């Protein structure tokens, strides 16, 4: 099949947009930490652009999209072997496909960083994402998109399960494993610069159009649908988060609105090309409320999901995957169209993913703990990770 130039443009520009989400994530997270941890937090996203990118082209792509078996690909395309300028995937050059998929592999582990800011050793973080990318991301990606046992079964337009459930649930596992930041719940830990978080929100939403609408992999009607749902769902989720917050606390915060937008983006991800715009609005409204409740839980249960990686990506991802099975109506049929089987598959996919991701994440965490160590010392945490891990400080007089 020949390449289609417009599809190629669409996929490449979408890829650039997704890469741009990494600085977006860095700023989203970086604004919420304290001044002494801002570079450390941002580096979690930036270093993923280094480590995961190289890992992807060296081996990850082949494990995810190589033929392999029901569980994982193989090494036929390690080091991009067998791919050249004229290789084609669908209607685009394979190089473009490798890049597009690579962006997902880069951002997914970086999402987890929000759960462990301020207390993980930088070297261990790097080891963690590298291992997690191979052991968790590559297989799950293969299951859902790369020819594995969920391919063609579970509906996951742009990575609700592959990206958000995996990273969100792994966040929960690793933060429970690592324990709280010192002083959590005692000393106040306020965002040091909310404008950075708003900047990150803007970058993320902008980039998410590439993430979701680009996932059609072609410049067609479905891309337009995925685009409009990615426009309205976060808008609705921002509003519903704001509404519930306003009613509960009397104040609609900027940080809350931004978090609501993010929740909406997460929830619509698996559904973007399968639901109508009106269903997307409903999904967004639900997302704002559910994620708000999930984040409140943290206060009640007392675990330290520092930047709500689980509260937003985990809970939002699960909600999105399930609601996709409810609302799907375009090119797929969900519960509302009477297909309870699809919903069942969605739930099944989520559960398998959760179990797999939790077990693997804990094993990785355990191995790292026993070998190179994972958490910084209390005194390093005190001084801040920018100084102790990176030998620098973000702001200087």
């Amino acid at each position: 099949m020949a390449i289609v130039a417009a599809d190629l443009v669409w996929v490449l520009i979408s890829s650039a947009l997704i890469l741009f989400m990494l600085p977006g994530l860095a700023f989203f997270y970086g604004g919420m930490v304290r001044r002494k941890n801002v570079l450390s937090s941002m580096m979690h996203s930036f270093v993923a652009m280094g480590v995961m990118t190289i890992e992807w082209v060296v081996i990850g792509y082949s494990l995810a999209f190589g033929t392999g078996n029901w569980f994982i690909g193989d090494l036929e395309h390690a080091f991009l072997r067998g791919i050249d300028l004229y290789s084609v995937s669908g209607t685009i050059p394979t190089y473009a496909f490798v890049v597009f998929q690579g962006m997902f592999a880069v951002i997914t582990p970086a999402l987890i960083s929000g759960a462990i800011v301020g207390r993980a050793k930088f070297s261990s973080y790097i080891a963690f994402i590298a291992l997690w990318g191979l052991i968790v991301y590559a297989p799950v990606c293969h299951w859902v998109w790369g020819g594995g046992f969920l391919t063609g079964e579970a509906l996951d337009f742009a990575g609700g399960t592959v990206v958000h459930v995996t990273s969100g649930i792994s966040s929960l596992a690793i933060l429970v494993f690592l324990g709280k930041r010192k002083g959590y719940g005692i000393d106040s830990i306020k965002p040091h610069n909310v404008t950075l978080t708003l900047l990150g929100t803007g970058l993320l939403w902008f980039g998410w159009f590439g993430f979701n609408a680009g996932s059609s992999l072609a410049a067609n009607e479905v891309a337009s649908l995925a685009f409009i749902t990615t426009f309205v769902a976060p808008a609705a989720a921002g509003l519903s988060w704001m509404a519930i917050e306003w009613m509960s606390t009397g104040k609609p915060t900027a940080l809350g609105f931004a978090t609501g937008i993010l929740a909406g983006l997460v929830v619509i991800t698996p559904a973007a090309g399968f639901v109508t715009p009106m269903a997307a609005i409903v999904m967004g409204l639900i997302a704002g409320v559910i994620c708000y409740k999930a984040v409140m839980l943290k206060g009640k249960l007392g675990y330290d999901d520092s930047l709500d990686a689980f509260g937003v990506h985990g809970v939002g991802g699960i909600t999105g995957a399930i609601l996709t099975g409810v609302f799907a109506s375009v090119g797929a049929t969900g519960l509302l169209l009477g297909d309870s089987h699809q919903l069942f598959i969605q739930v099944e996919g989520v559960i398998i993913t959760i179990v797999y991701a939790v077990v693997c994440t804990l094993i990785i965490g355990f191995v790292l703990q026993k070998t190179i160590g994972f958490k910084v010392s209390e005194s390093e945490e005190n001084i801040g990770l920018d100084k102790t891990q990176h030998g620098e400080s973000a702001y200087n007089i």
Partner: protein
Amino acid sequence: MKYVIAIIRPERLESVKRELQKVEVNRLTVSAASGYGAQKGHLEVYRALELEVNLLEKIRLDIAVNDNFLEPTIAAIQKGAKTNSGHIGDGKIFVLPLEDVIRISTGETGSDAI
């Protein structure tokens, strides 16, 4: 000599400066500060967690003056910093004793250096 520290509302800085100029006090040091005081703070919410926060932004002025300038300086700050007939949160002035001043560029000391 006295070392005067005044805590004022950020938005009154210009008018305080104007009043100080009228009494020929042109040298001062300004810094950002935050204050807890009688002025009630506000509830802040961070992602569904409530925090009661009373820390409000303030401006801090440091002014070294010779004794005869103390009265006019205080009066000027009061005039410039007071909102209408005076509100809680308008701030405070602290007067500390000052033993010596040295001007770095010339090495002058004492009242001449102020």
